[in-house]
């Protein structure tokens, strides 16, 4: 008995050394630098926004800015932005996933994978005026592809109703940086799919599709969801591309914010800040949905 006791005590002691008690303050050290950084450089400016949202141009306290949020044109701006963000996040997510799949599980040559990764790195940030112009040069009325289609294939895109300067044209343009982003984010997750699992599944008689449905995708889902929420945020906050391509005609919330804070005409930064606060709220709601979905997908993973 005593031998057993001492054995157990020894084990417990060793265990404690290897795993410090979870009540120790030391637990928090790991995240302190990040929180200090976040406090100084993210939360402080955010509080500035929040404070500014309650101020008029002259500096007095007001709730009028928040009341302004409920104007129909502004609500519609939020809605259009959410729509385009969801669209490009989902489509970009799908396309990006398929491409990442091709170079990882799909066993394409290593050179292709390396090129894709670096290319995605550049493309994921090729946005703003150069991207807008690139798409104008490709699919605008005098764009290269438009002209080739017209002259070679006798296909007049614009006569058929296509228009680059529309919701779908803008989405097409956004996808240029959305799906490389997906590729970059999801590749490590796909790498993490062990060969042993698919082999084990095969040994047990599973078809590939069963393997994917029951093993691989469930494992990947939390990461996929995480990547998609990132894509959503990326599109939600995009400004320069939309402004250059559609001249503010498509009512996106970032453009409305911009017109209040920058520019030459309207100048109501208080309203701009209130709009930004609204954006934070939308983001928070989307993240809440994301957490819910992720928790459901993660619940049986050994975490």
């Amino acid at each position, binding site marked *: 008995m005593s031998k057993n006791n001492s054995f157990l005590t020894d084990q417990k002691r060793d265990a404690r050394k290897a795993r410090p008690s979870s009540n120790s303050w030391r637990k928090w050290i790991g995240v302190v630098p990040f929180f200090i950084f976040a406090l100084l450089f993210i939360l402080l400016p955010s509080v500035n926004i929040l404070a500014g*949202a309650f101020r008029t141009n*002259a500096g007095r306290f007001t709730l009028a800015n928040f009341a302004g949020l409920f104007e129909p044109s502004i609500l519609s701006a939020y809605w259009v932005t959410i729509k385009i963000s969801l669209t490009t996040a989902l489509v970009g997510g799908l396309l990006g996933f398929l491409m990442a799949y091709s170079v990882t599980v799909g066993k394409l040559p290593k050179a292709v994978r390396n090129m894709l990764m670096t290319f995605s790195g550049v493309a994921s940030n090729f946005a703003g005026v150069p991207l807008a112009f690139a798409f104008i040069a490709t699919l605008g009325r*005098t764009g290269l592809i438009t002209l080739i289609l017209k002259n070679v294939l006798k296909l007049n895109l614009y006569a058929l109703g296509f228009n680059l300067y529309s919701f*779908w044209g803008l989405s097409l343009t956004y996808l240029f940086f959305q799906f490389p982003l997906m590729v970059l984010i999801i590749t490590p997750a796909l790498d993490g799919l062990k060969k042993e699992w698919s082999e084990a599944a095969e040994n047990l008689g599973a078809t590939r599709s069963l393997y994917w449905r029951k093993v691989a995708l469930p494992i990947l889902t939390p990461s996929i969801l995480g990547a998609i929420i990132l894509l959503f945020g990326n599109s939600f906050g995009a400004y320069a591309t939309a*402004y250059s391509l559609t*001249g503010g*005609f498509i009512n996106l919330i970032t453009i409305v914010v911009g017109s209040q804070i920058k*520019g030459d005409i*309207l100048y109501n930064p208080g309203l701009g800040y209130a709009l930004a606060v609204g954006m934070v709220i939308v983001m928070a709601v989307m993240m809440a949905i994301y957490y819910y979905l992720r928790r459901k997908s993660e619940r049986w993973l050994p975490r």
Partner: protein
Amino acid sequence: MKKTALLLISLLVVFALALSACAPKPPVAEPPVVEEPAVEAPAVEEPAAAVDPMAELVAAAQKEGNLTVIALPRDWCNYGEAIDTFKAKYGIAVNELNPDGGSADEIEAIKANKDNKGPQAPDVIDVGYGFGPQLIEEGIVQPYKVSTWDSIPAESKDPDGYWYGDYYGIMAFEVNSDVVEVPQDWADLLKPELKGQFALSGDPRASAQAQMSVYAAAIYNGGGLDDVQPGLEFFKQVNDAGNFVPLIAKQATVAKGETPVILRWDYNALADKDFLAGNPNIEVVYPASGTIAGIYIQAISAYAPHPNAAKLWMEFLYSDEGQNIWLKGYCHPIRYADMQARGVIPAELSAKLPVFNGPVAFPSIDQINNAKMIIADNWMSVVGADVKE
């Protein structure tokens, strides 16, 4: 965890409310006291000296060694040459911030840098005419009267010297004549040949250039200086005719042929024409029935870290040399009439400046600000909502 989050959020909100409530009182109308400029009182009989260095000011400025400017694209009114000449002449380094900025950016930058003496704080700003009263109201500029003050027309400057007009331009069509037939007047914008060919060079809710285009359209298409709505109606017609492309036009989109007809300040259009040098051919045409002029104004920041350099910069810009540099960039310098009378404009420069004998409207500050609000508020509802899904 939920409780902590809730607590944190409510703390944040309370903190923010507190911050906003005890926001520092808006600066009073008069800016901080500044010593009278070392310069002598405004002009006497002697011809306004071109760039006769006022030794004290120059010395003080050189001691400061730096000037920070903001939102000055190098090709706008030939600012590039102005900056380079100033640098070479006085040996003062120039920090160029935010070349793409608009007037609101410049004002925000002054406000944000109130306590900052570093190179992010603008010393001087160049903003739209309509912003003049706001600059004084918000107390962000300090007064200064350049030595050539008297030759600046009275309606283009603040009598106390807080802001002063620097140049103006006239709204014109910039046309890629290789690709399209050149329109001569407003009505030509409605022609079916121009389907999908016309664009504005900005968003009328954010860009003064675009907004003045709408204002100009208003004046000569059934409206007037105080009746702006017809401008919106006009562009609605252009849009309905399918001639309007809703993107922000620039030199590149004109050259590409994507937006071969745009409305721009003539100095920008002429600069484009020079730069593209026939590749493609650009023509600059004033709408025959009339157009509008846009004045810009200069001011020195009340919190300028380099006030003497700022004043020297103003002296430079308002000297004959400085004004001629702007003239080279196709802008109408504000002292043009005076300089012409004294014959100090080189012949080749005045030959380059295009002549337009049609009506040119010069709206007042109030009229501009009034038009601003109407156009910005109504643009989307009257002309817009053309979101093809």
